[in-house]
């Protein structure tokens, strides 16, 4: 099995080269201050991203937003909860925005919206676990 690093440890430009980003069409990621945005593009032969692609994309973006909130004494510890509600299928390229809405020592709570040219098509909330950085 190929050993690969966590793509989320890398810059957005490097992360976009990860096969998962390419598979779900995630691009133009921008992060900072507890917030992250990106585009999700349709797969080849499709006119819009599927909900399958968007479900992965929202989690990836939530992690990127959560990453901007951890202190040097903390480290990311994985998604704890993810809830996504879709109101309709996507049309064309989609924008995803995630932002922090709350925090305690062991977790970050983030909300996200998925929208296209016609408006919001999905929204949700995620809880992301954080822990004290282990001493080495």
């Amino acid at each position: 099995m190929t050993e690969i690093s966590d793509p989320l440890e890398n810059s957005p430009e490097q992360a976009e080269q990860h096969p998962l980003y390419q598979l779900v069409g995630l691009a133009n990621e921008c992060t900072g201050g507890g917030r992250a945005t990106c585009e999700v593009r349709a797969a080849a032969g499709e006119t819009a991203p599927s909900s399958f692609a968007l479900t992965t994309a929202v989690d990836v973006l939530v992690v990127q937003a959560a990453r901007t909130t951890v202190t040097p004494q903390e480290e990311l510890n994985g998604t704890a909860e993810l809830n996504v509600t879709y109101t309709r299928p996507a049309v064309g390229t989609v924008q995803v925005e995630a932002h922090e809405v709350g925090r305690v020592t062991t977790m970050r709570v983030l909300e996200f919206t998925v929208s296209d040219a016609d408006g919001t098509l999905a929204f949700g909330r995620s809880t992301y676990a954080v822990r004290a950085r282990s001493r080495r």
Partner: protein
Amino acid sequence: MMLATRFDELVRNWEARPLLRELGITVREIESGRVVLAMERNGTNVAGVRDSINGGVQATYAELAAHIAIGTLLDDGARIDRTQDVSVSYVYSATSLWTMAEAQVLRHGRLTVVDVDLRVGEAGEDEGRMNAKARVTCALVRER
């Protein structure tokens, strides 16, 4: 169409999709309202913290399992219009070589609800340990 033949066709159609191929997903068991899938770690799905299967990939895996399980119950003219809700509780980091998904339809109607368990797949002390618990709701439509 005979049930076994219909299920064979369903499996062939799903396994031919690039998304399943790229994520290393195959169908292991299929019956009315229930499927078991297997996902092998690969360079695409391992994108989580500490070399784990990405949480979004696990959510999509559960969603795919739910769609295939629903597909076993669809009669002529009915189809999945869209996923309405995906809710996942992550229990244990998915670091095993194989992650299994077992999807069971709980309610079949215009809104169909599916329960999905993701578990460690390979033999060993962690075999069967739960990675995540998901519930997927899909809206169904009937073509006129």
